[in-house]
């Protein structure tokens, strides 16, 4: 790359600064607008789909039902268990669709920015929603001491490893989980978007600034397109993982035994 760069002007690699564009107006930035747009899209989609539900669904209703079913049966019921999952279905569905739409913004032309690559948004969901919810239901189900025991002492562990195990489990359950939950999706979106930027901008640079390097430009664009498909997969996967882990934490907090 340095060799190629030498032929034209200076190639400025995309970096963190590309994620923090100047505000559109006042202190409102692009991701903020996108975030609001995302909840409008999801709300309108579901409300329109459920306005006139029929026992035998039409195409549009079927699509909405598939999404709802996925959140309800594949994630919430699987992870929380058939006994307790009902009250958590809206939460899990909201998490899934919220993360998914905001991720997919990274692929939609003109918008092309995954909102979740700003750590504040996933952190808000994981630290301020999922974390309190699963600990709250856990404390409510098992009592204060009971829940602490339930979360920090894995059943069947021999007594002599407990001094080591309890701090690790506590650290993981009460500090690490919400952070990793947010960082996982944030990092994936951040890195993915950065990769796309690199290949797209490099292609553009090669095309405009190069002499002979023009012939390499399509390779760079081809990579960008291939990565776009990969990104689409990762975006869906990350939304699924976020919802799945949230449900799993709730399920573990509620479980009678592990």
């Amino acid at each position: 790359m340095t060799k190629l760069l030498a032929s034209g002007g200076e190639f400025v690699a995309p970096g963190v600064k590309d994620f923090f564009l100047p505000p559109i107006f006042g202190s409102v930035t692009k991701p903020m607008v996108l975030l609001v747009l995302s909840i409008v899209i999801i709300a309108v989609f579901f409300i329109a789909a459920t306005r006139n539900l029929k026992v035998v669904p039409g195409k549009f209703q079927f699509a909405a039902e598939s999404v709802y079913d996925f959140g309800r049966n594949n994630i919430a019921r699987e992870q929380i268990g058939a006994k307790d999952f009902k009250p958590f279905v809206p939460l899990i569905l909201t998490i899934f669709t919220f993360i998914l739409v905001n991720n997919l913004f990274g692929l939609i032309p003109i918008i092309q920015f995954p909102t979740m690559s700003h750590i504040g948004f996933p952190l808000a969901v994981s630290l301020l929603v999922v974390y309190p919810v699963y600990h709250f239901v856990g404390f409510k189900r098992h009592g204060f001491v009971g829940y602490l025991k339930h979360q920090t002492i894995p059943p069947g562990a021999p007594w002599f490893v407990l001094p080591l195990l309890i701090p690790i489990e506590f650290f993981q359950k009460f500090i690490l989980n919400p952070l990793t939950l947010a960082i996982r999706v944030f990092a994936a979106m951040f890195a993915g978007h950065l990769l796309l930027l690199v290949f797209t901008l490099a292609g553009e640079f090669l095309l405009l600034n190069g002499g002979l390097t023009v012939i390499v430009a399509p390779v760079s664009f081809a990579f960008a397109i291939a990565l776009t498909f990969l990104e689409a997969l990762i975006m869906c996967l990350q939304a699924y993982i976020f919802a799945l882990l949230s449900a799993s934490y709730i399920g573990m907090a509620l479980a009678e035994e592990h």
Partner: protein
Amino acid sequence: MDTLILAAEGPVNPVIPHTSEIILGLVAFLLLLFVIKKFVSPRFEALYEERTAKIEGGIEKAEQAQAEAQRALEQYKEQLAEARAEAARIRDDARAEGLQIVEELREQAQAESARIVAQGQHQLDAQRAQIVAELRADLGRTAVELASKVVGESLEDDSRRRGTVDRFLNELDAVAAPASK
């Protein structure tokens, strides 16, 4: 690189969350959660329940119809069996009754015939006795007349004559008696 940027401009570190974004993220998420919890989930759940009820209702209805048909069949079979039993019973009764009637009639007929025979016998006995009495008087007189004519001897003496006739008749009775018995 991070440290460099961090040194130059504080807020550009991507790992440090912006407070405004956290607040906005939370508010937006909770708004969406509210909408979904309030409007979307209940409608879907109601739909699922309706669907389940409809499917289960259909199954239940079919089962009900089947049970009803089964019940009707059993009832019909029962009635048929009852009717058959009833018919057999009636036939048996009729047969028994017929036998009884025949028996009664036979007894009646026998009694009647016995009665008729007895009456006939009685009548015959009476007639015989009458005839015997009549004949006795007649025969006595005729025999005496015949004897007097044959012998020519006047049997004036009444007592002797009666004695002779009686003796004769008694002998005659003794001869006839075994025959009449």
